[in-house]
């Protein structure tokens, strides 16, 4: 692409290519200088305006319409490719030495083969050696099982999902099956029973961050019961992603800021939170 012949740019790397003319050199030098110092004087006001227009045009390249019709297919493929994490019975091993792949991989250990897999010659080995093998296999299996149990019952991380927390989302006119998608005009009803001091907030994503559009217990259209249950009603009147966030175990009041700031504050005080995204079309 050039002034004389648009589309003729075949240079391997434009950085090393000769300038088409002095004007291009001057423009390029100014652009480079203004990348370091935005106040670098332009060759001319007209040129500065031209580049301002060009860069504005580049920034406003259409990003396309929101289309979520392909999400399910990706999720299905992702689920099919998800690595196995549950203990898996390895058929190459006898029941006495069930190989727990996930645990073994985590520990970086190998499981001793079952006696039934041992070659026939093993029967000719001294009895004491076979006893030692059996004992080692049994001990290792017991250790592996103990580690798996320990992994399974270990306490959840700070932000793990709370089991006694319930979120219910309803629409006024008609209950929709999919609680992650809503239409303009729907109402969002969030019910929660936070553990400890808690708060429910609803954010609407605007300008790259979440803006608070509803909160409970310290906001309008919020009701609280004596047993600590909270209910927040928010009108969905803007087509944008929304987040419902339930904060728990707050040790001090949350700030009232952008969603990213509030989550950061919650993390700073080791509070727990759960969130759910709702897309409003």
């Amino acid at each position, binding site marked *: 692409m050039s002034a004389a012949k648009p589309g003729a740019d075949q240079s391997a790397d434009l950085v090393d290519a000769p300038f088409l003319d002095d004007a291009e050199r001057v423009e390029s030098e100014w*652009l480079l200088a203004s990348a370091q110092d935005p106040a670098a004087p332009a060759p001319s*006001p007209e040129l500065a305006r031209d580049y301002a227009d060009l860069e504005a045009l580049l*920034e406003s390249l259409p990003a396309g319409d929101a289309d979520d019709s392909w999400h399910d297919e*990706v999720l299905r493929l992702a689920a099919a490719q998800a690595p196995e994490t549950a203990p898996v019975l390895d058929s190459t091993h006898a029941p006495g030495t069930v190989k727990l792949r996930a645990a073994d991989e985590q520990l970086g250990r190998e499981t001793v083969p079952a006696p039934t897999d041992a070659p026939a010659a093993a029967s000719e080995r001294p009895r004491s050696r076979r006893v030692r093998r059996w004992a080692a296999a049994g001990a290792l299996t017991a250790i592996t099982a103990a580690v798996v149990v320990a992994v399974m019952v270990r306490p959840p991380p700070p932000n793990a999902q709370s089991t006694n927390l319930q979120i219910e989302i309803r629409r006024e006119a008609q209950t929709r099956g999919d609680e992650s998608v809503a239409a303009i005009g729907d109402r969002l009803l969030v019910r929660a029973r936070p553990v400890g001091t808690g708060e429910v907030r609803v954010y609407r994503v605007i300008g790259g961050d979440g803006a608070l559009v509803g909160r409970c217990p310290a906001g309008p259209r919020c009701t609280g019961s004596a047993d600590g249950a909270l209910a927040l009603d928010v009108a969905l009147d803007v087509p944008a992603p929304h987040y419902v966030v339930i904060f728990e175990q707050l040790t001090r009041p949350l700030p009232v800021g952008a969603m990213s700031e509030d989550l950061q504050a919650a993390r700073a005080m080791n509070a727990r939170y759960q969130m759910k995204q709702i897309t409003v079309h």
Partner: protein
Amino acid sequence: MRRVETSAPGEAEVSRHGDPPLPERAPPPRRAPSSRVDRASEEAALSCLNRGQRDEALKILMYAYGSRITQYAARMLRDRELAKDVRQQVFLKAFQQIDTFERRGTLLSWLCGIAHHRCLDELKRPATTRREPLDTLEDLAWDSALSESPSRIAKQRALERCLGKLQPHLRTQVLMRYFFGLSDAEIGELVGNTPGAVQRRVARILPRLRRCLCDEGGTR
């Protein structure tokens, strides 16, 4: 006869023909492109990852960045159907590798890197029926342009044509900078260059784009 405000309040200036002169538009200083990072979604996705909910994180990322990744791929590959395939591959790869995401940068930049490499892989394949005529790709200025003025649409279409004429390794840097709003350092990391080299390259690309736009009738 209308009075026109000048730099000195109270003074009036009238053209020879009786019409007010057009006020001179001061050239704005250059500024870095706006970031396209969706902070709320990034926070939400990272929160899901902390809880081990990779599928939830994937959903959030698809909602937040799916459209932009698709349009980036379409502009890189000049093929909308192939762009959809790449989009699927990008998010599947993100799902598989999200545990390796180092939280130094943004998820947008990370996804952009995956998309960039997937597009380069596709472009290395022999071009058979892959490329669409440029004219049909002008419709990349499609749906959301319906609310724009005709002159604006004409400019956007001319720009799409000019972007299509850039070599892919140049086009990707323009798109990373302006379409994704990545910094020179982020772009440099993705394409294996220093931030300075990225700035030099962009400083060479923009004059060519400006001339192309003039030739295409997209600007004055």
